[in-house]
């Protein structure tokens, strides 16, 4: 399955004609419009009479709003209306948080426009509606807001100190919640451990950066009261419900459409102020309204991801067996709780133990308010953070015990004979084979050869060090059994909906409650339905992203679409086949039990001449001249599937980096991933998902990081300063798969959308530190920028601590951890200090005027 040895996808598709569709590459049906530019992204929508909205946003991280003077804006050409926060306060309720993780969770009121107090740079303060977008933007500049600056809360550790400044003046503290979780006897595990390894990791804040900026268009349909909302969203169904509740609109009169959506990665899994504003103002003005964010506006006003401080410790036996794991998190909520903000770190809570066996596990997470853009789900949501911390600390533990990092993992991981396995956090992993994925990855990577190469380079005294990094990850996705989500206080279930509409000509429409925005559901669902219904791939249309087409659904996030939504397609198809079988038996005058269905043909067992096809039955059922007694004349079917368990993809990723110790520059030379995502519907799409996931996880390790200054100003405010990697910045990934089918869905599939992102960050960071360990470095802040690498090298040199593989006793490791913390703190201060200074190229792109 090594990708480089494959025939081209086109050859593959051609040679596989006539075979089952599931399991082989079918080229995407989605592409024809996309490669020719005939798209329908939200900003492409232009409606008669449509007007444009622009927002005035707080330039201060924390300020009272003393007054808002709209008069200057109202005098500007083309302006139709302007509103302050107070003006719209009665039109809509607060923006929703659907995940109250504890009963006493503190939730700041989140008005659609701030009224008395702005809580982050970018918090909306006023809205202007004008005939053209340019006029709206011009007029927004004429809104005069009198702000009273308040202290900005920017640092989580400071924020939770007694007497700290408050991110919201009306709250008692900056703590939203404390969420504890414990299994096993953690005191016993640590008190009796031969070694304890402790670290503090900073999982930096990231910007999701979907290529399509957010956009919303709302069209009021006149006297009927119906409202149509097009939004660049991953969650039209959730948005419909939440808009109904927030704006007090009859849910039945709301139609939400997610047209072409240009990526999401979690950033469009939300209910945003602009969506609510556009809705209530379109209703009020009786005209269609469009709002589209600019990129730099989105950097402030669209959710960020990650941003946790992770204190983690491992209790170990002498022989390297893990006894216990403690995790203490500070999770930055930002200024408000968005749709699932507080739940994100808890999605990681179950994943810190990862693939490892242990006796006890203790987890605590505190959600902390700061005057920064709210965080929420970003690709992986909680699990990349957990995977980073555990894969980093097992690597550190191996080093401290003088073991090879892969040997340490093998000693502790769940072996393939042990599945299904109830792990320490209470989840039951249904299937997996860590040995197989690891063996394949190590062979592809030439692990031993690379180690030899690394040693040779060291012996030669090369200033460019090689580093090898490992990540043997697993994750939980497919969110999830509804009862489990209920037990975690999540506001909704985890089911998914699908329906099949059989048309008279034998073609079919698949209706899905999932909402693709690049994942290729149209193609994959066609493959599934084609096999299940026995009709050609080409005869299937997949309809999605419109609440008037799929009246219900749980949308697309959390690598759930195939494992739950694909499952629902299978079940809906099976119901169609059962009905068709009934009709076939009737028409063939046979007993239903004697009807065999294969490849679209129904035949009487033992009498192959007596047969009919799905297409004939579809037509016969449409005509309805002759159908079974007691049956409705319809093959149409639907299914709502609630999965019995999460899905647990896993894999082994290996990274080779070269670190220039003179400049701090890290180059990723090679990346091998072997993922086990169970059965595969479309290998090409799967590979694409892995590639994209890897790029984003690697970006966290090497390139991206949000920086605020001490006043809460976003320093990485445009793409000039926020380094999303481009083509030359990433290597050609080498990907492969192993396959242990999931046992919890009929397709045997596991999710793949987030796996690459979850796995790759620690693989790369382990490689960076592996390269620098002989120089006394055992931690580098992310991203491993030249500056952060150089700072780590300088700190190590100053400490004079030559690295060693010596086994260190438990009582000395605490000092090591302290040194790490100090290094991290120093570097953090350096970043803050830098933030105070002018970034000389903050608005330029590397070209000249």
């Amino acid at each position, binding site marked *: 399955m090594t990708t480089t040895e494959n025939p081209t*996808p*086109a050859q593959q598709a051609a040679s596989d004609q006539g075979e089952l569709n599931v399991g082989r590459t079918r*080229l*995407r*049906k*989605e*592409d*024809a*419009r*996309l*490669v*020719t*530019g*005939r*798209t329908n*992204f939200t*900003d492409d929508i232009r409606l008669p009479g449509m007007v444009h909205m622009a927002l005035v946003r707080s330039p201060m991280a924390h300020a009272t709003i003393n007054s808002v003077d709209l008069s200057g804006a109202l005098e500007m050409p083309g302006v139709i209306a302007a509103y302050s926060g107070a003006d719209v306060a009665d039109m809509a309720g607060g923006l929703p948080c659907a995940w109250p993780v504890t009963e006493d969770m503190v939730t700041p009121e989140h008005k659609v426009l701030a009224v008395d107090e702005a809580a982050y740079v970018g918090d909306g303060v006023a809205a202007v509606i004008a005939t053209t977008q*340019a006029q709206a933007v011009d007029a927004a500049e004429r809104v005069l807001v009198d702000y009273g600056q308040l202290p900005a809360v920017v640092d989580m550790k400071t924020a939770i100190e007694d007497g700290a400044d408050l991110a919201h003046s009306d709250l008692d503290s900056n703590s939203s919640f404390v969420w504890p979780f414990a299994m096993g006897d953690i005191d016993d595990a640590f008190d009796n451990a031969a070694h304890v390894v402790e670290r503090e990791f900073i999982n930096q804040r990231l910007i999701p950066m*979907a*290529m*399509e*900026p957010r956009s919303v268009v709302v069209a009021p349909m006149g006297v009927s009261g119906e409202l149509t909302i097009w939004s660049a969203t991953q969650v039209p169904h959730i948005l419909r419900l939440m808009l109904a509740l927030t704006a007090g609109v009859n849910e039945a009169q709301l139609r939400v459409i997610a047209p*072409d*959506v*240009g*990526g999401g*990665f979690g950033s469009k899994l939300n209910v945003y102020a602009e969506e609510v504003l556009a809705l209530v103002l379109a209703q009020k003005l009786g005209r269609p309204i469009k709002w589209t964010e*600019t*990129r*730099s506006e989105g950097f402030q006003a669209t959710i960020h991801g990650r941003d946790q401080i992770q204190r983690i410790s491992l209790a170990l036996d002498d022989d390297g067996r893990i006894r216990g794991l403690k995790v203490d998190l500070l999770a930055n909520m930002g200024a408000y709780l968005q749709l699932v903000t507080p739940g994100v770190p808890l999605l990681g809570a179950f994943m810190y133990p990862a693939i490892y066996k242990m006796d006890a596990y203790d987890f605590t997470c505190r959600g902390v308010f700061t005057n920064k853009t709210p965080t929420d789900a970003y690709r992986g949501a909680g699990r990349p953070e957990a995977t980073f911390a555990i894969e980093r600390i097992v690597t550190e533990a191996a080093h401290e015990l003088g073991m090879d990092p892969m040997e340490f993992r093998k000693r502790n991981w769940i072996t393939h004979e042990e599945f299904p396995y109830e792990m320490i956090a209470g989840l039951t992993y249904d299937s997996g084979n860590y040995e197989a994925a690891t063996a394949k990855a190590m062979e592809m990577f030439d692990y031993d050869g690379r180690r030899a190469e690394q040693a040779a380079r060291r012996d030669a005294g090369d200033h460019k060090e090689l580093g090898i990094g490992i990540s043997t990850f697993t994750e939980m996705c497919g969110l999830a059994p509804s009862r489990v989500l209920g037990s975690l206080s999540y506001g909704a279930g985890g089911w998914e909906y699908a329906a099949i509409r059989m048309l008279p000509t034998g073609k079919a429409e698949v209706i899905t409650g999932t909402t693709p*925005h*690049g994942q*290729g559901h149209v*193609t994959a669902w066609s493959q599934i339905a084609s096999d299940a219904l026995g009709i050609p*791939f*080409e005869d299937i249309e997949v309809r999605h992203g419109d609440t008037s087409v799929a009246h219900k659904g749980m949308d697309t996030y959390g690598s759930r679409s195939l494992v739950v939504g694909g499952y629902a397609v299978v079940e809906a198809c099976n119901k169609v086949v059962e009905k068709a079988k009934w009709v076939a038996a009737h028409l063939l005058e046979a007993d239903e039990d004697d009807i065999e269905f294969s490849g679209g043909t129904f035949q009487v067992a033992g009498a192959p001449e007596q047969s009919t096809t799905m297409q004939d039955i579809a037509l016969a059922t449409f005509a309805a001249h002759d159908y079974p007694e007691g049956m409705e004349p319809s093959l149409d079917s639907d299914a709502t599937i609630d999965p019995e368990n999460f899905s647990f993809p896993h894999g082994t990723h290996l990274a080779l980096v070269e670190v220039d110790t003179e400049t701090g520059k890290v180059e990723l030379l090679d990346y091998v991933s072997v993922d086990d995502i169970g059965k595969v519907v479309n290998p*090409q*799409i799967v*590979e*694409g998902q892995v*590639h*994209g996931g*890897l*790029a*984003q996880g690697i970006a966290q390790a090497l390139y991206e990081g949000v920086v605020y200054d001490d006043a809460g100003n976003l320093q990485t405010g*445009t*793409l*000039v300063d926020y380094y*999303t990697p*481009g*083509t*030359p910045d*990433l290597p*050609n*990934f080498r990907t492969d798969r192993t396959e242990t089918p999931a046992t919890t869905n009929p397709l045997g599939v596991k999710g793949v959308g987030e796996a*690459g992102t979850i796995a790759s960050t620690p693989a790369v960071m382990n490689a960076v530190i592996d390269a620098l360990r002989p120089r006394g470095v055992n931690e580098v802040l992310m991203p491993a920028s030249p500056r952060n690498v150089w700072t780590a090298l300088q700190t190590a040199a100053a400490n004079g601590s030559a690295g060693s593989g010596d086994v260190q006793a438990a009582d000395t490791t605490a000092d090591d951890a302290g040194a790490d913390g100090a290094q991290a703190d120093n570097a953090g201060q350096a970043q803050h200090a830098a933030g105070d200074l002018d970034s000389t190229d903050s*608005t*330029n*792109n590397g*070209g000249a005027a």
Partner: protein
Amino acid sequence: MQVNVTVDGTEHSNEAEPRQLLVHHLRETLGMTGVNVGCDTSNCGACTVHLDGRSVKSCTVLAVQADGREVTTVHGLATDETTEEGWHPLQRAFHEEHGLQCGYCTPGMIMAAADLLGQNPDPSEEEIRDGLEGNLCRCTGYVNIVRAVQSAAAAGGSNGGGNGSAPATATEEVSA
């Protein structure tokens, strides 16, 4: 001001404020969808078109600067000379190699690639990566984009697209 611009072989004459960016002229005034806006700092390349045959970021060109000139967008890339079943070799290669997911960066990426192949019909992987450095993609990790450009080059995709013909009709069922 009056802007006379030939877009994908068709002449258009419209009023534009001096401040109107070419990308907004194409999108708002001419109603084109194959030119996207992904940033405000000339970084992302989603708005890439050809101006008199060379790739430019249409968000960093004023509409009035295109007066009297020829613009080619992804809509007009496939011409009679470059077309196979309605698609330019690059469009086909992006499809076959899965060089796109959400598709938002795709028009700009394809136009940048078309310019690259026009200058260098047989680029190395490194030359492809360098040649596309002005275009960001967030879905693909670029691997299949590079493959697509290699594949298009092998298929003779260096015919960088013309300014001459009306948008081609794409074949919807190309995967069969």
